[in-house]
């Protein structure tokens, strides 16, 4: 396991069973603060299931998922774990929290493998819904301030639109702000979903196959966007991706899953040459083919 000092997220002994199927099997890993961490593995390895456990959509059968906003000692997490509470101000035990709380208070945002935009709402509205909580607070008790059109509410709405506009500029969609999200081409929808997740102001952004179905130019735009999110917004990224060129290009840290269990964990360099990883992707441990594939991976990567 790669040593991550002062991890943002620390997953320990996570297991998820569906009936007899063990989708995630005693998985432990850390996500570094300010890193882009990639979670890779063959189809059905359990990557999406890990995301669903992280973001509260599934209750894990077992395990602890701890997120610490500020630098905190491992002891804080243990104290919280035994206290039976769900979170303190800085430390959050995600497996105990409801999905919406995880986004709200623990500030973990996510996108989905099959895009889930509000396709009958405009691009702008999608970004405004993501700022629901702020606007809700501004609209006062029972929405009264909003109903009466109070100035404080209108200011908040203007700020939300400005924030949305900022993100539209970053994903190059200002011109389509008033079109239904369902009308956008696939690549734009992917980027819009990321922008929408960013509008919730997350500390950790979980992206499920953001490059799936993108052409090379769009992939390049995407990597740029992800880098800027890490560097400018200071949001750490946890990424599931099958496109190895993207993964190797931008990741600081890679975790490899196979059949729900972790088979490798390290820097892109160490993963690239790990025979277990190559075997897992191939499904067999045939020396010949392993060599062929590793060849392919490294030539595909040589820029």
């Amino acid at each position, binding site marked *: 396991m790669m040593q991550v000092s002062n991890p943002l997220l620390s997953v320990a002994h996570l297991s998820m069973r*569906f009936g007899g199927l063990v989708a995630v099997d005693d998985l432990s890993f850390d996500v570094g603060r300010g890193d882009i961490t990639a979670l890779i593995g063959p189809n059905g390895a359990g990557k*999406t299931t890990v995301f669903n456990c992280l973001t509260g959509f599934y209750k894990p059968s077992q395990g602890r998922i701890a997120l610490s906003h500020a630098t905190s000692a491992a002891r804080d997490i243990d104290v919280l774990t035994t206290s039976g509470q769900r979170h303190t101000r800085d430390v959050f035990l995600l497996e105990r929290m409801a999905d919406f709380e995880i986004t709200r208070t623990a500030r973990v945002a996510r996108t*989905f493998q099959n895009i889930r935009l509000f396709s009958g709402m405009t691009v702008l509205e999608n970004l405004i819904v993501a700022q629901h909580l702020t606007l809700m607070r501004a609209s006062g008790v029972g929405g009264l301030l909003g109903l009466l059109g109070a100035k404080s509410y209108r200011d908040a709405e203007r700020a939300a639109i400005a924030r949305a506009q900022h993100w539209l500029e970053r994903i190059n969609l200002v011109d389509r702000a008033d079109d239904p999200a369902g009308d956008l081409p696939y690549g734009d929808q992917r980027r819009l979903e990321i922008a929408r997740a960013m509008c919730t102001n997350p500390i950790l952004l979980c992206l499920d196959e953001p490059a799936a179905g993108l052409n090379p130019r769009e992939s390049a735009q995407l990597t740029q966007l992800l880098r800027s999110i890490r560097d400018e917004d200071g949001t750490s990224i946890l990424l599931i991706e099958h496109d190895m060129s993207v993964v190797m290009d931008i990741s600081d840290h890679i975790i490899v899953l196979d059949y729900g269990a972790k088979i490798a964990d390290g820097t892109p360099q160490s993963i690239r040459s790990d025979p277990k990883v190559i075997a897992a992707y191939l499904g067999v441990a045939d020396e010949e083919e392993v060599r062929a594939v590793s060849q392919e991976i490294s030539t595909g990567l040589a820029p």
Partner: protein
Amino acid sequence: MDVFLQQLVNGLTLGSIYGLIAIGYTMVFGIIGMVNFAHGDVFMLSAMIALILYMALTMFLGLSSLPLIFILVLVGTMVITGLWNWTIERVAYRPLRGSFRLAPLISAIGMSIFLSNLVQIVQGPRNKAAPEFLSGLFHFGPAGADVTVSLKQILIMCVTLSLLGLFWFIVQKTALGRAQRACAQDQRMAALLGIDVDRTISLTFVIGAALAAVAGVLFMIYYGVVNFSDGFIPGVKAFTAAVLGGIGSLPGAVLGGLLIGLIETFWAAYFSSDYKDVAAFSILAITLIFMPSGLLGRPDVEKV
């Protein structure tokens, strides 16, 4: 003990009728994912048709052999009700297949209103009291108890059991059954594999109606009274039965029907008959809230 056994028999009789109707709901839901709201009224229609056929056979043709009359009424009602449901599917549901989710539901509610009002107009609003079809009681008493079972009840349970057996055979062993299960899984794929989806769905409606017609004939014989408004409550209860058993599951529908019949009769016997329908509906709500996939249904996983 007497009361208990007696209510058990009564409950099972009523439950057989609910179970037969429930199969129609469960099959249609299984194959096109739609709550066929008009099914209760199809049941009522069949009871009315059964009564008319019975009267016609005895009055115009002067038949007097009970078994012959019963068979003729049963088959005639099944055929005509099947034709009705076939037409309903063709006219009101097929054009809406694959369209907006609520459209078929509204269409089905419209059909339900249409059917009950049609029967009200052509047959009049008053209760139709049928002449006694079959009389005769048996007494039996295990361990000194005295339980009365009428011939009608025996008839109902025998007919239900044998038709369920036949139906089970059709759905499990024939090409139609396979086609049905394929369509339930994935209609597009089934069509690509050469299954005539339209025909399969039509046949599903016909079979559902035929079973509802059996229930209608038995209902007519058992209660001896038919009214145009008799479709709604049994319809909702049969749907409850389908949900309780796990919607989409055929044995579940029968089990659910029997349970609802038992719960209702026991509730009426031991508590109050005023609130027996409240009991049935509460069970529906409680099942759905705590056990949404019913007793025998497959859990409905929410994949993210």
